[in-house]
């Protein structure tokens, strides 16, 4: 088996009960992801992108089929192992930032490290480094409500990256940003992808995002329609 293989999906289905029928949000999805990829799941709204990302992050479970993420079978993970997987190995970025409003920027970024029970000096060093990556070291003491949208999403990136995860899942991270800020965070993420070797999987229907991706998986009505390699992306 390829040691660069980090995710393997086999005949993945996800259905929700509707009335006395089932609605399939994901249909027979089979694919693989590899270490260091900067890939995206692209499709119109309702095509199943978020559902797929949530399963990859072990926030949700497949109805049938299997999802193996970083060596773990998502269907059979205990609550604790699933939490550990997210705490140590998977970072999330959301469309709506989801910063914790009562914490400062520093504390938001520090959170995952607190859960990991890292020492205060280790935490400080890692948090400041992560804030350097996203260019917000000077905003460490600010509360999220004092930040612009672009800055908030940068904090979210720092929060997801501070633990140096193998995998970063970004669900429409640019949907609430203007073009300039969108390009800004994408460049930052691309740099982190190159320098830290973190694998990125986006969900998006934003052309700007697609311009950075090395691989685009087209999803339509829960089915993979097309899977294309992009050898020289527009903005790379």
């Amino acid at each position, binding site marked *: 088996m390829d040691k660069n293989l980090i995710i393997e999906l086999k005949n993945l289905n996800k259905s929700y009960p509707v009335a006395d029928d089932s609605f399939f949000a994901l249909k027979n999805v089979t694919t693989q992801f590899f270490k260091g990829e900067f890939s995206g799941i692209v499709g119109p709204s309702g095509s199943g992108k978020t559902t797929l990302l949530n399963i990859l992050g072990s926030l949700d479970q497949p109805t049938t089929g299997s999802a193996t993420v970083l060596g773990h079978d998502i269907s059979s993970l205990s609550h604790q192992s699933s939490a550990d997987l*997210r705490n140590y190995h998977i970072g999330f970025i959301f469309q709506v930032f989801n910063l914790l409003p009562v914490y400062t920027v520093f504390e938001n970024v520090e959170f*995952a490290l607190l859960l990991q029970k890292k020492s205060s000096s280790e935490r400080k060093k890692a948090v400041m480094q992560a804030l350097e990556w996203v260019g917000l070291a000077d905003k460490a003491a600010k509360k999220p409500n004092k930040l612009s949208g672009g800055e908030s999403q940068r904090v979210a990136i720092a929060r997801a990256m501070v633990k140096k995860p193998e995998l970063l899942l970004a669900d429409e991270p640019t949907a609430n940003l203007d073009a300039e800020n969108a390009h800004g965070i994408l460049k930052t993420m691309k740099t982190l992808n190159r320098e830290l070797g973190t694998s990125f999987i986006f969900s998006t229907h934003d052309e700007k995002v697609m311009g950075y991706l090395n691989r685009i998986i087209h999803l339509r009505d829960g089915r993979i329609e097309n899977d294309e390699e992009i050898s020289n992306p527009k903005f790379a």
Partner: protein
Amino acid sequence: MKLALKLAFKNIYGAGLRTILNVIVLSFSFVIIIFLNGVMDGWNAQAKKDTIEWEYGYGQLRHKDYDPYDPYTILDSHAPIPENRPDLTPILIHQASIYPEGRMMNIVLKGIPADQQTLLLPTSHLNAQEKQYPVIIGKRFAASSKLNVGDEVLLRWRDVNGTYDANTIYISAIFDSNVPTIDDGQIWMNINNLWQMTDQVNEATLLVLNETSTPLESTLWNFTSQKELLSTIEEIIATKKISSSIMYILLLAIALLAIFDTQVLSIFRRQKEIGTYVALGMTRRKVVGLFTVEGSMYSILALFLASLYGTPFFIFIKKIGIPVAEADQEVGLAIAERIFPIYGFSLVIGTVIVVVLASTIVSFLPARKIAKINPVSALKGKIQ
């Protein structure tokens, strides 16, 4: 746990007005629970001390036929005082009546040695030389009989043969005691006089022990320890405590309800935050813990607030005491005009534990639901 405390503190600090209200109401409960119980404990201690000093001494030996709750037993309940026991203060009880201003009042006549040291009764006044039968009475009886120091009044009693006899007694002193059971309807005279009047020389109805007393083996006398004597006071105070608790139980209930409500609301309003915690690697169980600690944190903050204004208040009241209304003094239990509360260590710690525990429970009940939340729905804010 440390993490939960830190997070909880931040969250509650950021929650604003609701937090302040919850904390204020809860802090009132703290202060009132401690205050009311402190007053009761203060009363209890004062009542016990007074009753020991004025009535119970270090236990009593009662004549086997004597029942303090049945006046008909008095006539036949007397026996010779045990020999060589100077530590025992004999009290001989007899029924009689007096005629102040021509009215008749039934009273209990009690003979006690004028030189006794065990009880605080000012019995040295029973040696007054001016008149033949000097007696002392308490302030309550003085008020109800309208007798004053120096007054003379006619006393009538039945001697052992059942025939009436009469004499004039002289009020040589009025004593000020908080203990109504040695005061209301009672006249204290020198036991030597009562012995002669009743022809019961060297006899007593009951014997009061002092600090140095040892037990007495006798079939004539029933021993009742100081502790048993005081148990009635304990019982009455305990009942009073329960009835006064209504006030703070209501207050505490309001505070706990407010915390419960805040918790229910915050779980609904903070779904995305809950989802985010899970996405960042907290187990849902840990999030339940976080919200529970957050709720019990209200009680910690309330504790700080309560000690801030409660401490000076408690110290002040302890200094000046609580004035007791005239009407409340008619409870049949020793009660001073001012009660000085006692805030015992166990009262304070007990209150803290109860309040913290109760607020933790009402925080946990709604927070428990988080364990069943679907993190995906929470992140989408779709939990109803």
